[in-house]
């Protein structure tokens, strides 16, 4: 580990946070004020190239943000290594599985 590892976590946490905030608020506004939400509009939205790119960046930002945040919480409150490591591994598995599932869904979007 280099002496800068903590700085990277700190920086990533901030930039991912900004992106997540902007993305979620933007999608919420698009959905709320874009008229009736049916399958065609919802899937059309996520089939557009711009949204495919924005959503891919979003899930990566979200997983980094959640990982750094949960890691901080675990390291603060769980001290025995025999518990800490398995808990971190379970969290990592949950986040990675979610990320792959999200990207798979995004790639396979089938607009009606």
């Amino acid at each position, binding site marked *: 580990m280099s002496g800068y590892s903590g700085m990277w976590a700190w920086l990533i946490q*901030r930039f991912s*946070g*900004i992106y997540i*905030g902007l993305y*979620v*608020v933007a999608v919420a506004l698009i959905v*709320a004020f874009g008229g009736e939400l*049916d*399958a065609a509009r*919802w*899937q059309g939205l*996520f089939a557009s190239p711009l949204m495919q790119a924005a959503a891919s960046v979003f*899930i990566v930002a*979200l*997983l980094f943000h*959640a990982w750094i*945040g*949960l890691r901080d*919480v675990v390291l603060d409150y769980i001290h025995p290594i025999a518990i800490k490591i398995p808990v971190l591994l379970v*969290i990592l598995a*949950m*986040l990675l*599985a*979610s990320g792959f*599932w*999200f990207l*798979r*869904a*995004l790639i*396979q*979007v*089938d607009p*009606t």
Partner: protein
Amino acid sequence: MRAPDGRPIYLDLRHIRLPVTGVISIMHRIFGVLLSFSIPGFVYVFGLSLQGEAGFARAAELLGQGWLIPLYLLLLWGFVHHLLAGIRYLLMDIEIGVAKAPATQSARIIVPLAAVLSLLIALGVWS
């Protein structure tokens, strides 16, 4: 309880009065953990919703169960709080509102504001 050097540590949570800046901080943590553990659920329903007409209908059916409404309210409140408190921390990073007085003031505003704003959003969505 005592620290290794023999100094007493007083950790009775019933008697510790957390200042509002501490309240906003621990809420940021708790909601962050809660939001993190909601990710798999959201991803699952999101995936369903993108699978044609049938998948979208199935996702709407899953989300439309009444017993989930308290959970939505909690997650909405959590998101709004985490976002506003997060913006507060970002401003502190660029040295805005770091001193004790403004930090206390902003926390006093944001804690109730997040709850009210979530309620307004919920009312807007369900009307």
